């Protein structure tokens, strides 16, 4: 087993907290670990990243060599594109929040960022800002995204949850609750994504839909998952997903939502 993950975002978004949960899960699984990160000046609203290298053998280098990351997990869409040169061209995957963090005057038109993301062979888009608010705090965006990455990580959800709990237990009971909620909501996103992917639906189609589903902090029911599977088999699905992406309206996680969406085309 060997996995190289690049975490990124803007200073202050909670990248190091995500790294904490993965680090301790890796140690618990008995793996070797190297995790370089950025401290200091760059943390003031600048671009921040952490490399997480995990293996069942000793790891030689702190840094992930270019083109060798299995996964980019990003808290911000522009930042997710910044490190593509680290991503494996064969099977690298990008998981990113879609919420722009605009603190530079020349921030690009978000649609040009999404246009890039849709071209990726393997991508999962997450509406972290919306789901985090729902889970109890806008600051829990990082745990939403971590949950969304969970099925790509070689640790069980219960181990990840244990370290989410440990991390926030130092702060308060309430924060443990909020962040577990957020993590589980992210896991639901990950779960539906896996179901659709395994059925052969392309990532770029799924990416236009998942950000607008109103996920909850528990697994997506089989009936809802099946309804979406059916949706993607419909020839009009492509147009419907594009329409949903443009309208940016949140759909309830109910089994008749996909049917209604198709009717609207």
């Amino acid at each position, binding site marked *: 087993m060997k996995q190289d993950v690049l975490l990124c975002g803007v200073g202050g978004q909670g990248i190091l907290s995500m790294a904490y949960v993965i680090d301790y899960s890796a140690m618990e699984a008995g793996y070797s670990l190297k995790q370089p990160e950025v401290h200091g000046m760059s943390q003031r609203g600048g671009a921040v990243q952490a490399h997480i290298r995990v293996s069942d053998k000793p790891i*030689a280098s702190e840094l992930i060599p270019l083109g060798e990351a299995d996964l980019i997990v990003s808290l911000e869409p522009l930042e997710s594109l*910044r490190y593509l040169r680290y991503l494996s061209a064969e099977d690298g995957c990008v998981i990113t929040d879609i919420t722009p963090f605009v603190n530079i005057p020349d921030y690009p038109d978000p649609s040009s960022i999404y246009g890039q993301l849709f071209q990726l062979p393997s991508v999962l888009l997450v509406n972290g800002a919306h789901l985090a608010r729902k889970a109890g705090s806008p600051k829990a965006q990082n745990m939403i995204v971590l949950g969304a990455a969970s099925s790509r990580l070689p640790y069980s959800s219960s181990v990840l949850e244990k370290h989410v709990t440990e991390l926030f237990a130092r702060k308060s009971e309430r924060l443990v609750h909020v962040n577990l909620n957020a993590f589980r909501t992210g896991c639901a996103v990950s779960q539906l994504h896996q179901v659709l992917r395994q059925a052969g639906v392309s990532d770029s189609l799924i990416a236009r839909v998942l950000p607008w589903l109103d996920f909850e902090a528990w697994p997506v029911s089989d009936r809802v998952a099946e309804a979406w599977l059916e949706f993607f088999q419909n020839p009009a699905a492509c147009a419907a997903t594009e329409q949903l992406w443009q309208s940016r309206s949140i759909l309830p996680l109910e089994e008749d939502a996909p049917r209604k969406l198709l009717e609207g085309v």
Partner: protein
Amino acid sequence: MKAMNRLILLGDEAVARGAIDAGISGAYAYPGTPSTEIFEYIHSLSARDDLGIHARWSTNEKVAYEEALGMSYAGRRAVVSFKHVGLNVAADPFISSTISGVHGGLLVVVADDPSMHSSQNEQDSRFFARFSQIVCFEPADQQQAYSMAREALDLSEKLEIPVMLRLVTRLAHSRSIVALSESRKQNRASYCPDTSRWTLLPSNARKGFDRLLNKQAELRAFSEEHGANKLSISGKGKPGIIASGIACGYVHEVLGDRLAEYNFLSIGVYPLPADKIKRLIQASSEVWIMEDGYPLIEQQLTGDGLHTAARIRGRMSGDLPRSGELTPDLVKSAFGMEASHGLTLPGSDAVVKPRPPLLCEGCPHSDTYEIIREATRTYPDVRIMGDIGCYTLGFYKPHEGLHSCICMGASIGMAAGISHAGFSPVLCVIGDSTFTHSGLTPLLDAARENTNIKVFVLDNSIVAMTGGQPTMVTDEAVVQIVAGLGVPPEHIKVIKPLPRSLEENVKVVRQEIEYRGLSVIISRRECVTYYKEIKTAQRNREGELR
């Protein structure tokens, strides 16, 4: 039990833990990226587990070094830590303490910043170790960082010289799993009976220097036999590699099993093991030097280009970039292997804009820059000399309110020099912590001759840039210090930089600019990012006073 002895630690924290487990009684430091977490770890663990280690931030690195040296004088072990440029500040006691020698073990940890991620230069501290003729450890990973810190303190006490441990950013700020060993008790305090070796009058200092020189053979033997300086000869005529510290890992990563086709020498301890190097050179068709930082090993091997008996390839030969940090990708391309380009998307370069760091929303520094801009609008020749801290970001848009930044405290002295050259108005900005670090002495100079400069002390009550460490003085104590240095009270102004007070603040500053002498304007408002920490510190201070 096993879980207790294995921790996930930053390279910085691994060094700190090694020092704690070696039985230190004191930890001294001034914050600076990438070294800050060394002291912070000791401070928090000592408080949590009641370890009885004296751990307080010092005013600057020179003071930190002298406090550590005093702890050593009293027979107890100490660690002093700072970033590479901090060693410049501490260089005076550092160099002379190699002549006096130490009593309790003294470990000097210096964190270098190749590629200047958070620094004004990328100087390599191994040169300081060589210059001062002491032992320097350069760990390759976190486990070595832990064990070398322990070993360095034992060695320092045994050889009676300070010992250096050099980190680079990528190791200092990278986490890994570290296995701990049994901790050692602290030394009991005891004076060294010979006070003459600590009193560097010329007659004593000459003896001290001879003592240091006489130890050199022992130092070289130590390095020659050390396990971290490991030589593997795979065969005569094969290419050779010398890699030091973190670069060892990069070489392993890039070459993997193919490393067996090379003659390989890893370096973790200095002075360099000359015999092992000679054997490597004799056996090898060419020798690659992989080091993170300046080409110290390469320059020693080539004698700055004076002898070229062997084919040496590295940063000096042009096979690797002369500056910037080493990466596995650079090692790869040096060995002629094609570096991967990763995933490329057409057009992504045009989309991805840089995102430099900037002042936080609501930062008092932004308001101070606004006040200065308004007050100096009618003076196109104005110069605003800067210093080291978050406010250095005022150089960038939208503020563009800074015209220099050289080193800690330079703003005031440089402003005075410009004034001496005949320019006015000359302003300078310096944070509260930088002011006590290195701003007091130049302000004393300016007060003595009433130099026509306007010094802005940006008092935000915390050391924000490095993560919110406590400041030495804030609020009225700053005013008292400024007055104590001889600045007339009528030209010490305190303003509160808030958008709604812009107009009145501009008026105060304009008035002082029109005065042709020294003014100190204290721009006082708490840092917004560390507001909670500042309020807690204030309550604690008030508690102490009652």
